[in-house]
């Protein structure tokens, strides 16, 4: 058993009352989970259930109201290059070319230019971006932009990737390609991944474990272990083991829907 990489301990998050809602909104309640080294953990939940808030807290962008996140046993208090974040929007700097975007991280962490370029070259090849290094982000398709975003994070050699619905805006074909690419990369460098999605198939295809969330307040409802063999290819989605897990999850979601905990209710109904 590998050692625990990320520990989320008794996490609560209440948003301050705003003009829209009277009283604070309880976004997260009693979130507890662990991610072991080299594991892919998928957080599956409907929009608005607080899964992005969890990622933001692990990344260090937001502070929890209660509880803490430990990465390698150390408490998270700010963002850092040890936890690479990939957003739903690619977040590339539009004034920088692909290559310039990728060397941003090494530049920030004080590497020499020559060393940065060598590293960048390595990841450009790994992610399949050669031939695009001098393009600007707006000249690329959505899938290619997300590839650059992944390469930009990997070049910092983080041992943790935090991915917030990174393929959510891509078309089905591209999404499938990107999922396979991600698993390929994972096989090669074995990062620990926290992957957030609302897509059941994506969660099963990628994950070692899936945490299903309910909402308002966001809580972890159940954990599923995905015991499918690795390396996985896309044919796996027709296997009986895959369908079995999918059936279980769908069943759970159906019962959650009956209890009004999936999808998220609006704060005020009327």
């Amino acid at each position, binding site marked *: 058993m590998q050692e625990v990489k990320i520990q989320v301990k008794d996490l609560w998050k209440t948003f301050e009352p705003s003009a829209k809602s009277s009283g604070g909104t309880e976004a997260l309640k009693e979130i507890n989970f662990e991610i072991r080294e080299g594991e892919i953990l998928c957080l599956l939940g409907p929009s608005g259930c607080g899964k992005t808030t969890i990622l933001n807290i692990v*990344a*260090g*962008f937001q502070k929890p109201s209660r509880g803490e996140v430990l990465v390698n046993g150390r408490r998270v208090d*700010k*963002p*850092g*290059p040890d*936890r*690479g*974040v990939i*957003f739903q*929007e690619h*977040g*590339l*700097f*539009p*004034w*920088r*070319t692909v290559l310039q975007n990728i060397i*941003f*991280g090494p*530049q*920030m*962490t004080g590497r020499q230019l020559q060393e940065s370029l060598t590293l960048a070259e390595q990841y450009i090849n790994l992610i399949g971006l050669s031939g695009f290094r001098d393009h*600007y*982000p*707006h000249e690329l398709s959505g899938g290619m932009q997300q590839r650059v975003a992944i390469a*930009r*994070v990997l070049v*910092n050699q983080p041992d943790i990737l935090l991915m917030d619905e990174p393929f959510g805006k891509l078309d089905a074909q591209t999404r499938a390609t990107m999922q396979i690419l991600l698993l390929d990369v994972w096989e090669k460098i074995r990062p620990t991944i926290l992957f957030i999605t609302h897509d059941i198939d994506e969660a099963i295809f990628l994950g070692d474990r899936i945490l299903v969330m309910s909402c308002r307040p966001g809580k972890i409802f159940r954990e599923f272990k995905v015991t499918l063999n690795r390396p996985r290819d896309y044919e796996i989605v027709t296997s009986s083991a895959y369908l079995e897990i999918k059936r279980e999850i769908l069943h759970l979601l159906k019962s959650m829907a009956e209890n009004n905990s999936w999808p998220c209710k609006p704060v005020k109904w009327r």
Partner: protein
Amino acid sequence: MKTERLVYQNIYFVYAFSLFLFFIAWFAVASRTTPLFFPSPWLVSQAFVEMIKDWTLFGHIQISLFRILTGWAIGSGLGIPLGLLMGDIPFIRNMLNPYVQLFRFIPPISFVTLSLIWFGMGETSKVVLIIYTTIFIVTINTIAGVMSVNSIHVQAALSLGASRFKIFTMVILPSTIPFLLTGMRLAMGNSFMTIVSAEMIAADKGLGFLIFTSRLFMQTERIFVGIVALGVLGFMVDAVFRFAIQKWARQYLFFFKEK
């Protein structure tokens, strides 16, 4: 199928045609009045040639342009850092915003006489007025640029290891560039307004002076020369500025294509 480019689809032809119509209209209006009231293009071009020959027009253009460019450059040089600081640091923004919001409604022209009292009849008083004209427009646009930085870019940079200072120089500054360039272009236009009014009141050279004194000698055609020179000059300065942006700051304008 053969696609034919019709003559009226050629943009240069349209420009030329438009100009042709404009001169026809000008001739038509001029022929119905006296030259003193509305000189014909012919008279204006004669005056123009005359003023080119004795170098007076060039002198006026040179001094006006010098005042505008100096004031504009200094004003932008002050306005950009001011806007960056105000946009990035709430304390500075809250300290200075009331003044910026108040002074931007006071037209530079209203300071012409004060500027003369404080800075004398020389170049300083005019340059100061242009600085005043430029600084608020550039500052306000720069603040808007800083405030509209994409928060995902900041988060991405933070998690890629950027320090607070690096975020400022490597993320906030580049994403502000389109805004501050827009501010500078707007300020250039306003500088032309200011310089003419300042030169009308207190100068012995410059396009504003030319327009104002020609009135005293009933040289309406020279007023026209001055007016046309202002328009052409403004157009040319803006064209040079746009060319420079395309040449050196092109990648920052991709910002707008993102959305």
